[in-house]
């Protein structure tokens, strides 16, 4: 890293850019542009996160904020409208609320330990334990992964469930791309364009170069996802990031070769079973540890002689579960949006 001198300048610059982006998002009437700006905003914040040593978070933010969220926004815009109506009212109350909230926060923030203070309460309690003892207790170098999957593994299980909930919602609300909700439950092939057929994407499909490059790229993306999945113990990465990247690979495939191609390869039923399977793998690991005489998610019991080894195994398995669920949830959400015809 650049040391104490360059750091703040880069960070400040990033912040100035981000604030600019945010203001642009607020003002921009073209929603497509706003969505793209949001993607850039996420990317910048990922950069900022990296500067603040949160590589795992940065990785995820880049994949999710800049990747998935932007795709979702574009997808939704493809199905709705791309222009915001001129807005006239309720600016002042909102501004008042926001200013008051902001001042309150600033008031508290100024009382906080200085930025980067190594003697802040937060640095003296609990966290040192993770940094000092996780090597011995869990046995993997990436402390974030240790905490994520073991010390606070239950939170991560909850997080997996949140993702699963989103899939439930997307399928229930948008019909999983299989049928239209409400009026006429028939298939939606008859009329209207699909999101995957919006002009930009149509051009994608028609451009030979993109097809060729894309085709070559997809396997590498999937491979990279697998690397991220299983390398999470040692470096940034893990089930969540891997799942998102894997899904991104599949979605890219669908964008190039059409939704139906992907549908044929991975039917909706498989997607749904996959979603459930991932969560059940995670829960199953926990239940197995209970059966073996430990608490829920107490991986140490998997290897009585070498608890750290058991921890390692447990983390590998739950990360795998997360990866599967996230992959299929992302695909399910993509199906749900993409399969929705435009009115």
């Amino acid at each position: 890293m650049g040391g104490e001198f360059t750091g703040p300048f880069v960070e400040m610059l990033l912040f100035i850019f981000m604030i600019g982006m945010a203001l642009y998002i607020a003002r921009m009437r073209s929603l497509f542009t706003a969505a793209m700006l949001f993607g850039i905003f996420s990317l910048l914040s990922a950069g900022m996160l990296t500067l603040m040593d949160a590589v795992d978070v940065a990785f995820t933010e880049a994949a999710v904020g800049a990747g998935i969220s932007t795709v979702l926004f574009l997808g939704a815009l493809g199905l709705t409208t791309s222009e915001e109506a001129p807005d006239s009212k309720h600016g002042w109350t909102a501004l008042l609320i926001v200013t008051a909230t902001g001042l309150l926060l600033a008031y508290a923030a100024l009382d906080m330990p200085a930025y980067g203070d190594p003697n802040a309460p937060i640095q003296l309690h609990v966290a040192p334990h993770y940094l000092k003892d996780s090597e011995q207790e869990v046995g993997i170098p990436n402390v974030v992964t240790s905490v994520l999957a073991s010390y606070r593994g239950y939170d991560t299980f909850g997080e997996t469930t949140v993702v699963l909930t989103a899939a439930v919602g997307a399928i229930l609300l948008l019909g999983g791309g299989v049928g239209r909700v409400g009026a006429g439950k028939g298939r939606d092939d008859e009329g209207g364009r699909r999101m995957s057929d919006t002009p930009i994407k149509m051009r994608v499909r028609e451009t030979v170069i993109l097809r060729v490059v894309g085709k070559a790229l997809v396997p590498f993306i999937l491979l990279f996802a697998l690397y991220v999945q299983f390398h999470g113990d040692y470096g940034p990465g893990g089930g969540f990031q891997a799942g998102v990247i894997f899904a991104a690979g599949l979605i890219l495939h669908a964008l190039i070769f059409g939704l139906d191609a992907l549908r044929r390869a991975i039917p909706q039923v498989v997607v749904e079973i996959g979603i459930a399977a991932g969560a059940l793998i995670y829960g199953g690991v926990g239940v197995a540890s209970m059966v073996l005489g430990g608490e829920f998610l107490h991986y140490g019991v998997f290897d009585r002689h070498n608890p750290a080894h058991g921890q390692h195994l447990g983390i590998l398995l739950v990360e795998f579960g997360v990866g599967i669920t996230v992959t299929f949830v992302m695909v399910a959400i993509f199906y749900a949006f993409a399969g929705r015809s435009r009115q």
Partner: protein
Amino acid sequence: MTSLANQILSHWNYLAVITLMMIGLYIAISRGNLVKKVMGMSVFQTSVILLYVSMAKVTGGTAPILIEGRDDIIYSNPLPHVLMLTAIVVGVATTALGLALIVRINEAYGTVEEDEIVAMDRAEDERDLRSEDAS
């Protein structure tokens, strides 16, 4: 006065994050376009992530991936990172759900502007009321 300036200097990061948060919150509550609202919400949530991670930063520290055999390295606090991984996921789940709702709202109303939707609902109420009076 200088003490306040010092305070601001040593906390500039937090203040920048708070500014971002408030812009996000402002978009979420003041915009009439539903997609914009969700965008604002996302900006808000992303900024909260920055807030947490800012707390974790230790000057001169590095990412909390242990390097064997080195005791002299300062690591930043891994716990907020873990928490924010969860928060990001929660955020994207919320965004997905919000957008799914917007798609349905657009199908039902033909618009994603809050004002127009409210106006349509009100017109519908008035129509019901009139037909009731007529009967």
